[in-house]
C-alpha cells in the first residue's frame, strides 16, 4: 500500500490542480461558449439558438466603438511602448553612471495598480484643475487640453496612461536583450570602423527579434485585458466613447443584466487572445522540448 502510494504520489499531488484547471479554465470557457449561443438575458438559459447573440453583438454600435477603440488603443500602445522602450534601453546602455537609479524610476509604474494609475492621470488631465488650468495659469490663456471629457479624444488619455505604466517594463526587457548580445561581434564591428548607429540597426536590433516578439505578446495581452485603467480614468465615457471590449463585457454582465451579450463578447475577446498567444505558446513549448 505504501509502495503504491509512493509510486503514485507525484500524480496525486498534481491531480487537484489538474482537475481545477479542467473545471475552472476549460470547463468555464465551455460554459461561456455554450451560453453565448442561447437567448440568455438576466438569467442563463441552456437551449441553443445559434448565433443570435453574435448577430446582436455585431449589430451593436457600442460594441463597434469598443472594437475600434481596442484596435486604435492596442496599436498605439504597443508601437509607442516598444519604440520608447527600445530608445530608452539603448540610451541607458551607454555606460550611464546612475543607471541603477534611472532604471528603478522608469520601471516603478509597473508595480502600481491600474486603478492608482488611472486615478493619478484622471487628476492630472482634469480640465478644470489639471494640466489645462496649470498651463493657463502660466499665461497661456487659450491653452486647451480637454481630452478626458472630449468623446473624440478620451481613448487617447488611456493610451497615455497605459504607456506611462508599461513602457519602463519594455525598456527592462530590451535592456536585458542588449546585454545578452555577443560583445565580441560588436567590438569587431567597432574595430572595422562601422558607425555605432549601423552597429545597432544591422547587428544588435536584428539579433533581438525574439525579445520583440515577447514584448509584443505581453503588450497585446495587456491591451486586450485593459479594464481597470478605463474604469478608473474615463469609466468608458463620455457616453461609451472610450469603451473597450473588457468594459463592454463587464457592463453587460453586471449592470445591464444581459448575460448572452456578456458571454458572446467574452468569447470574442478570447478569440483575439487565442490568435495571438497560441502560436507563440506552441513555438515556445516546442523549442523547449527539443
Amino acid at each position, binding site marked *: 500500500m505504501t509502495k503504491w502510494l*509512493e509510486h503514485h504520489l*507525484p*500524480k496525486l*499531488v*498534481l491531480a487537484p*490542480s489538474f482537475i*481545477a*484547471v479542467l473545471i*475552472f*479554465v*476549460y*470547463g*468555464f*470557457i465551455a*460554459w*461561456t461558449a455554450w*451560453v453565448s449561443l442561447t437567448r440568455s438575458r438576466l438569467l*442563463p438559459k441552456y437551449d441553443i439558438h445559434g448565433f443570435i447573440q453574435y448577430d446582436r453583438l455585431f449589430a451593436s454600435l457600442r460594441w463597434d466603438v469598443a472594437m475600434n477603440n481596442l484596435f486604435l488603443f492596442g496599436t498605439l500602445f504597443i508601437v509607442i511602448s516598444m519604440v520608447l522602450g527600445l530608445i*530608452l534601453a539603448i*540610451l541607458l546602455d551607454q555606460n550611464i553612471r546612475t543607471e541603477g537609479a534611472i532604471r*528603478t*524610476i522608469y520601471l*516603478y*509604474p*509597473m*508595480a*502600481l495598480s491600474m*486603478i*492608482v494609475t488611472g*486615478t*493619478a492621470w*484622471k*487628476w*492630472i488631465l*482634469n480640465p478644470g*484643475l*489639471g*494640466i489645462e488650468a*496649470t498651463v493657463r*495659469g502660466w499665461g497661456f490663456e487659450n491653452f486647451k487640453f480637454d481630452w478626458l471629457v472630449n468623446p473624440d479624444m478620451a481613448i487617447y488619455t488611456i493610451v497615455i496612461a497605459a504607456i*506611462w505604466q508599461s513602457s*519602463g517594463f519594455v525598456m*527592462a*526587457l530590451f535592456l*536585458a536583450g542588449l546585454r*545578452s548580445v555577443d560583445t565580441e561581434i560588436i567590438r569587431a564591428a567597432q574595430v572595422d570602423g562601422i558607425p555605432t548607429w549601423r552597429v545597432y540597426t544591422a547587428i544588435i536590433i536584428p539579433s533581438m527579434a525574439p525579445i520583440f516578439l*515577447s*514584448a509584443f505578446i505581453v503588450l497585446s*495581452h495587456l491591451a*486586450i485585458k485593459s479594464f*481597470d485603467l478605463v*474604469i478608473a480614468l474615463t*469609466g468608458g465615457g463620455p457616453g461609451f466613447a472610450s469603451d473597450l471590449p473588457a468594459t463592454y463585457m*463587464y457592463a453587460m*454582465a453586471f449592470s445591464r443584466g444581459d448575460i448572452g451579450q*456578456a458571454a458572446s463578447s467574452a468569447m470574442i475577446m*478570447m478569440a483575439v487572445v487565442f490568435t495571438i498567444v497560441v502560436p507563440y*505558446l506552441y513555438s*515556445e513549448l516546442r*523549442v523547449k522540448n527539443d
Partner: protein
Amino acid sequence: MTDLAISPARNQNRTSKIVLRWILYLILGIFVIFYLMPLFVMVSTSLKSLEEIRTGDLVSLPREVTFDAWITAWSSACTGIRCEGVRPFFWNSVMIAVPAVLISTLIGALNGYVVAQWRFRGANLFFAAMLFGCFIPFQVVLLPMARLLGLMGIAGTIPGLIFVHVIYGLGFTTLFFRNYYVSIPSELTKAAKIDGAGFLRIFWSIFLPLSLPIIVVTVIWQFTQIWNDFLFGVSFSQAGTQPITVALNNIVNSTTGVKEYNVDMATAIIAALPTLLVYVIAGKYFIRGLTAGSVKG
C-alpha cells in the same frame, strides 16, 4: 610625445563627445521627470488643502503642508454610503492577499517539482494546459465563476476571493517553479531515490532549501497581482468585503458632497504603498518575475 600637442581634430572630437554625453543625460533626465511627475503630483496634492488646490497649480509644492487628507482617507472618506475611510478595505486586501499568495505559492512549488523532476506521461500536456490558463482573458470565466461562488455559498466573501485568486494564480506559480526546478540536474533526484528518500522527503530536504530565490520571485509576483487586482475584486465582492482597489475607485467616483481631490490622492497612495514598498525593497526579484517567461533562456 605626441600627447602634449593635442591635434585640433582630436580636440573637436572630444568636445563633440562631451556635448553628445550632455544631450544623452538631458534626454534621460526628461524621462525621469515624465515617470516621476504623476507620483510627485499625487504626493503634493495629497498634502494641500482643498482651498490651495482650487487656486494653486498642479505642479507647485504645497504652501502649507497638511495631513488632513491622509487622515480623512484612512478613517472617514466615503465609499458610497459608508464613511469609514479606506482602512477596512486595506485590511480586506491584506486578508485576501496573504492566504492567497501563500497557498498558490505552495501548490505551485509542488506542481513545478513534479512537472520538472518526476516526469510521467501526460506531465507535459498538463503543463501546457496550465500555461494556457495564464493567458485567457478572465472575462471568459467571470460569469460561471459568479454562479459557482453562489452555489458554494461563498459569493461576496473574502474566502471566495481567496479561492478565485488561488485558482487563477496557479498557472504562473507552477510556471515559475517548473522553470526553476528544470535547471536542477535530475541525477540529484535519482541519487536520493537510490538512497531511499521518498517523494516528499526529496522535496523537503533537497529542493526546498534551494528554492529561496524563486520563492521570493513568486511571492512578490503573486502579491503584486492580487493586491492590484480590480476585476475579480469588483465582480466577486459586496459592500463589506471589497479590496482596496475597488474602494479607491468608489471614493474617487463618489458623487456626493464636495470633490476632495486631496483625499483621492492620499487614498491612491495608500493603495499603492504596499506594492511600491515591495518594489523598492526587492526590485530585483520583482523584475525577474516580470521577465520570467517573456525572455527566452
